[in-house]
């Protein structure tokens, strides 16, 4: 009896580990999107007073598939090297909140849009997942998720919308602000935006 139990336990572990190993970048995206859409369609979470709860639940799904430290690093570009560890930490936190608000803000107005998985190109530790976003009035938007294996888990480091890299777009803006003003000025702008976002909520 004991052996049987042990054997089935081992089998289960083996099964789960193979499933985990087979988890491709594309499957992580598809799986997360499916779960997110289910959540957004959930009739119990439709009313306005459930909006914050819905945002929280959605964030629980989305947060693990992004690598925000990598995103922050890439958004700062070569200025990242000039930052102290404390500055890096603070910037990552503040910028994560900005992105969180952008993504969750878009989810508030969800009205039946769909995401279609097209294909993926993977090279060892990096992958590009090609998808189409279909709006309710039938417009098609090309979205590519750039992913990298961080400690054996695929995570997003950039989202490319119609050829425009989100991280690249922030980088040109941050570069311009740092060059014209300073890193401190940029941090202040980010914090102000966060503050405003919280007020709106």
């Amino acid at each position: 009896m004991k052996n049987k139990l042990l054997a089935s336990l081992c089998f289960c572990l083996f099964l789960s580990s193979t499933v985990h190993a087979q988890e491709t970048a594309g499957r992580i995206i598809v799986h997360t999107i499916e779960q997110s859409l289910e959540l957004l369609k959930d009739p119990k979470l439709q009313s306005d007073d459930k909006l914050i709860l819905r945002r929280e639940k959605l964030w629980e799904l989305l947060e693990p598939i992004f690598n925000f430290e990598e995103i922050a690093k890439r958004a700062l570009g070569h200025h990242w090297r000039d930052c102290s560890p404390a500055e890096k930490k603070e910037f990552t936190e503040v910028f994560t909140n900005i992105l969180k608000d952008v993504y969750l803000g878009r989810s508030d107005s969800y009205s039946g849009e769909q995401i279609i998985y097209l294909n993926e190109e993977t090279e060892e530790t990096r992958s590009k997942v090609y998808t189409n976003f279909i709006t309710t009035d039938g417009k098609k938007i090309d979205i590519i998720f750039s992913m990298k294996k961080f400690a054996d888990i695929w995570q997003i480091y950039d989202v490319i919308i119609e050829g425009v890299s989100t991280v690249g777009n922030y980088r040109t803006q941050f570069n311009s602000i740092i060059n014209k003003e300073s890193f401190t000025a940029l941090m202040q702008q980010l914090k102000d935006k966060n503050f405003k976002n919280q007020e709106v909520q």
Partner: protein
Amino acid sequence: MKTLLKKTWVLSITSILLILLTPASHAQITEFEDDYDDYAYETEQNSISDPLVKYNQFMFKVNHKIYKHLFTPLSKGYDFLIPKKVQSSVNNFFTNVGTPQRFGNNLLQLKWKYALTEFSRFVINSTIGIGGFFDPAQAAFHLEKHDEDLGQTLGHYGAGPGPYIVWPIIGPSTLRDTIGVIGDNAFDPTFWFGVLDTFEEDEILFAVSMVERVNKYSYTIRDNYDRIINNAFDPYTSLQHAYIENRKKKIEE
């Protein structure tokens, strides 16, 4: 009118030659050589050439005011009167009318299959699609539209974007894409109706082009513009980057 046309052509041909002689500023990159490893070494000057930055920034601000205080209220009124489904049909109609431009530029890029697709789409949508208001070519025959314009054709043959230019009302462009738009007019039926005085009443032509503009703004531009600007910390730079990168993608396609 004729001299003006002649001047425009001389100007565009000279500029085409100039731009074709300028090598593209970005080399062809493979899928995984995007900016993964070199981002950290990128200098503050990205590859966008913007010698007119002072004028461009001024025009960006003027356009922003026009969009916010004139176009957005106008298009919200339009949204109220015209449901999105109808806007989509109006958009289909003008897309269908614009077939000669896409057909011609696909030919210029030797994309025979896409040119044929554009031709088939035109035939199907003009007939079964009731004068182009519907898109059965896509819905029933799965014939995808292949958007090409002269700016993309020039890019396809290696012309770099040249300096960034913000035009009044029209918005972001580059020297290459400006030349492209001028040249594309040759493919635009409504432009020739105007030149050849096909319509007795200029007002009709003006009204048609206004409907096209307002519909386009309401149906596609407004949301995209707002999304970029509302999330931006430096709106001018953000819009410029988005324009240049989006054009790059369209050229590579």
